[in-house]
Each structure stands twice: as C-alpha cells, then as structure tokens.
C-alpha cells in the first residue's frame, strides 16, 4: 500500500471520485487554476476541465447554496471552503438549507453535497483559520460531519462523503495535511460514516478524540503507559454525526475510565456530547468521572499564544493520570 500524506490522500480521492462519476464536480475559491491554497485540488482542472472544476467568486453562501441547486440538477458537488472559519458566512445555507432540504421534502429529496474545509490549530495561521468549530455544526440535524485523522481515513471517508446521499461536512486538519502520513489502501477504498476506529488498544483507560487531536492523544497514551505501565487506548471517532455510540460505550464499559480530548473550547464543544453519551450508557461501569480536555472558552488566540492554548500531549496525559488515579 502506498504511503501518502493526508493532503495527498484527499487529492487522490478527488481524482478518483471525479474519474469514477462524471457528475462529481469541485467548486470553491482558487480550486481550479491554483489547485487550492493547499494544493488539495491540484491537477483536477487540467484533467476534468473547467466545467467540473470551478473557481468561484468570493462568496461562501453562494458556494454552499448553489451546491444545493447543483445537487438537485443531478450533479454531485464537492465544495471547498478555504477555512472552516469562513463556513460561518454560509451558516444559514449549511444549517438552514442543505441540512434541512430532505426534511422539507418529507424525506423525498436530499442534497448529496460535500463541503470540505480545513481547520484546527498548530500552524500559527491568522485569526479564524485555526478555530475548531465542529460543534457549531453538530447541532444541525440533517448534516453529517466527519473528521479523519489519518491518510487512509481521509481517503475512505472522503469517498464515502461524496457518495453519501446527504450533505456531509468533511473536516481536514490543517496541521495534519503534510505532517500525517500513512498507508492508504489501493483501489476503491471507502470507510463507512459513523464508525469509530480503535487506534490503540488499552484496558485501563480510553482516550476519545477526532482529527488532529488523535495524534496528540496517541503521544499522551504512550507517555502515560511509559510512566505508569497503565494500558491506555485511543478511540478515533472519525465521524461525529452519525456518532458510533456503540464503540464509545463498549470502550467505556471495558475500561471504566474515559478521557475525551478536543481542540475546541470546552463550553458546548463536541466533547460534551461524547461525555454525555458515555455517562448515559455506561454510568454503572464508570470508575472515575469522564475527563474532558479542551482549549479554552476564548477565541483561538494569535500565533504567539497557540502553544499555550491547544491541548498538548502533556495536558491530555495529566488528565489520563488523574482519571487513572481517581478512586472507583
């Protein structure tokens, strides 16, 4: 199996999906001539033509809103929003329109659009480029949300998202674009939406995370295991909506000790949903409160401060150790 960066896996998948289905099209700011500001869409325009790979005017609501109409025409739009922070300009179209059109038609007609957007900190990007805003979209029923952490999952989830009959928000970790590299299955590889992945097995405690934080948590698990001998697992959610409640609960029941780690601010972050699911379904197995590791209840800070803001492996490890030490 070839080794790819996440960026390569995404680009490869876009090529594959456009080759597979001539209705698939890519639209967004700077996606065609430039191939995307991160080169995720490089080569697509030359290969598939300017009708199917389109540089859009600087208007996110139009990009997303037009995607709904394109989908109803039978096209399969894959829209890129340059940074997740700028999906806010299209929030009414994502939350109020794409997510709701199926319910509005009594279940009859959905919107098979995918919205790709990079997010997350660690690269000292300017304001609104780094915030982890997934929870703002997690309460948009009708929308699905995936956030891969590996190149293989980037490939498999993007293929699934594009083929899914409902709108999917596909979140790409900025700091994982080039830093995360792994083996990507050849051929037609898909990963079903709604299935978590055990990235590291552990019997004493499990850390639940998604996207770039999975790697932070893997380091934390190794740190704790090295220091204490405790067996610490990591569960990568991969998909936030639909959520793999079964795997989460199984891990919680097995270990009795759970840490949920996110990059977002704590208040109303998606981690709170995971904590709630755990305590609703595994309450009697819990030997310690479910710990939550998060950013802070502030906007993502300017570059000079980001290392203090983004939870690092030490903060996650400290939470794991507290959780392991808590009396049953």
């Amino acid at each position, binding site marked *: 199996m070839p080794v790819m960066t996440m960026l390569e896996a995404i680009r490869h998948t876009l090529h594959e999906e456009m080759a597979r289905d001539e209705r698939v099209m890519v639209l967004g700011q700077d996606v065609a001539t430039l191939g995307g500001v991160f080169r995720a869409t490089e080569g697509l325009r030359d290969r598939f033509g300017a009708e199917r790979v389109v540089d859009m005017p600087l208007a996110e609501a*139009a990009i997303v809103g037009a*995607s709904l109409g394109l989908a109803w025409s039978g096209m399969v739009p894959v829209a890129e929003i340059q940074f997740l922070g700028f999906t806010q300009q299209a929030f009414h179209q994502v939350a109020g329109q794409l997510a709701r*059109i199926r319910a509005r038609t009594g279940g009859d007609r959905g919107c098979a659009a995918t919205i790709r957007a990079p997010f997350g900190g660690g690269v000292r990007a300017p304001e609104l480029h780094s915030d982890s805003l997934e929870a703002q979209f997690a309460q948009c029923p009708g929308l699905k949300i995936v956030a891969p952490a590996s190149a293989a999952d980037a490939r498999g989830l993007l293929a699934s998202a594009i083929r899914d009959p409902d709108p999917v928000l596909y979140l790409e970790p900025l700091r994982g674009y080039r830093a995360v590299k792994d083996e990507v299955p050849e051929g037609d590889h898909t990963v079903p939406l*709604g299935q978590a992945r055990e990235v590291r097995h552990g019997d004493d405690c499990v850390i639940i995370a998604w996207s770039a934080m999975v790697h932070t948590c893997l380091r934390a698990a190794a740190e704790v295991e090295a220091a204490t001998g405790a067996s610490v697992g990591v569960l990568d959610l991969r998909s936030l909506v639909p959520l793999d409640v079964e795997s989460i609960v199984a891990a919680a029941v097995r270990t009795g000790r759970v840490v949920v780690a996110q990059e977002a601010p704590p208040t109303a972050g998606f981690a709170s949903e995971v904590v709630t699911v755990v305590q609703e379904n595994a309450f009697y197995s819990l030997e310690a409160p479910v710990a939550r590791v998060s950013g802070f209840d502030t906007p993502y800070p300017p570059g000079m401060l980001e290392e203090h803001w983004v939870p690092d492996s030490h903060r996650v490890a400290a939470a794991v150790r507290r959780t392991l030490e808590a009396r049953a």
Partner: protein
Amino acid sequence: MADARPAATPVSADAENAPALGELLAEMTRARHWSTRLFNLQRQGRIGTTAPIDGEEAAVVGSAAAMDPAVDWAVPQYREPVGLGRFGEAVLRHTILYHSGHPDAGRYPAGVHVFPTQISIAAQIPHAVGLAWGMRLRRQPGVVLCYFGDGASSEGDFYEAANLAGVVRAPVILFCINNGWAISTPVRGQTAADSFAGKAAAAGIAGERVDGNDVVAVLEATAAARRRAAAGEGPTLIEAVTYRMGPHTTADDPTRYVPPDELELWRARDPIARLRRRLEEEGGWDDARQRALEEDADRRFDAALAAADATPLRTDCFIDSAYAQPTPELERQRRILGDAEAR
C-alpha cells in the same frame, strides 16, 4: 379546463406555447380564489398562517405562463405557490399541506418542477442559480424561474447568487416581485436604489422593470428572458412592480402602516379586474364564464383540500426524513417517541 372555457385571444408572438388571455385570467382568478379560501381556512382555525397573493396574480401567473413546466423549474418564496397551478395540479394540494403544517408539503410528485416553499427570505436564490447552472452542465434544456420579494433583495443571498449567475451565465430568471412592502417596511426603507431591476448592474446581468399588474407585459418580459437564458445568453433580473393588496399574512394588521390612499390607488389597478375588463370589452368574457370559472376553482380546491386532508400522517415520520437512512441514534430515538406515545 373545459368548464372555464377561456377566451382564446392570443397573447404574444414572443411567448410561443403561452396560454391564451382567457386562460391567464382563469389562472389568476383561481390563484386569488384559492388564496382567499386558504385565508378563510386559517380564520376557521383549520390551518396555520397564510400569505395572501391578492394583487400579485399577474406577476406570478404571467411569469409562470412563460415557462415550460416539462423542462423548466419554479423556485418560489412562500406567497407564490398558489399561483403556480401551471406547474401541476399537485401544487395546490401541497400548498394546502404546507399551510396545514403537514410534513409532506414539500414532497412534490415526480415531474412537478417546483421547489418546496421557502420561508427563509432569499435563501432559495442561490439554489435556483445552482440548479440552473447544473442543468446546463448536465445538458438539460430547462430554465429556472426564481421568485423573491423587494425585501428579499436586501439579503446577501440575493446579491451573491445574482453575481454568481452572472459569472457562470446560469439559465435563470431572477424574478423580483416588488409589492411595495416587506411586512411593514416600504420600499424606500429597503433600499436607496432607483429600482430593483437596476440592481442587475451589480451582477452584470440583464435587468428589466415591468408593470407587474399587466399580465401580458409580465409574460412577454419573462418569455424574452427565458429565450435568452435557454440560448446561453445568461440570466435576467426582472422586477415586477405590483402591490400587496392584502395583509402580509393572516397574522398581520396592515391598517397599522399601509396608507389608505395608496392602497386605493393600487386597488384601482387590480390586475384581475383589469384583464377581465379587457376581455369583456373584447367580448371574450362574460358573467357566465366567470361563474363557471369560480365554480370550477371551488371544485378543484375542494378536491385538493379533501386530498390534503386524506394525506396520511405518521407521527414518527420526522425520524425518517432527516437523512436518507435514519442514523442509529435516530432509531433509538424512535423508540423514545414510541414510549411517549404509548403513555
């Protein structure tokens, strides 16, 4: 149609296949009649809020008449559907379902090329542009007719979509019904622009202002825009100047803000009375036809209402309509719902 026996006066060379004048009058009369019946149903507490079409029938019916329902699409806001009978018998039934709060309201039968009623002002405009653009990409022949109001023209969605339509030359007609009001806000409170049609300049598309109470003028302008769009010559913004003769909705009290003399002025220009006068003068219309038309309209409404009332309602259908397949969590929630219903 047989009952109404429309006058056969041809409308315009510009609009091939366009209905005859009598048929336009019939459609306009039905629109108002049905709107009034909806209003009365609301007053009886049988359905929820409705938005009367009174005064805007020429704008809606005239523009729809320029379209080919077999290949074209209509993308309405919320006031127009009652005038979109041309797009299929089902539209009336679904309009009743909509105001009844029935979940199948937006579930038009296949072949009815109408978008579900849009409550979010202007949000449908980017959809219409995307649909039109996609139809061209898919080499389908149709043109999309998108309705919105003078108020809607202030939303970013209108402008972004119009600008995009200009860039991709989408075969779309942006049809702005300037009825003088956005709830209580008059046009001068909405924009300092000279006209809504003039806003086309900002998108680099064609703009045209038309007397929205003259059904033939509306039809011709729309037919011309449709021809251009279909020929790949790009989108048109049409402003139909008309007047909302009734309240904003059944929940509104327009006497608080509509100047009575202004209303009187526009009542004198009632698009239905105007067309009827013309047809009567030309000998193409009389009281008997009118009576037959109204009886037919009532029969159709009764039938549609009966069909709407008979439309089954599953109380857990919302579990099934959020996604193509309910998520596992939704299946679990279906059980919670079942427990609650069982109590």
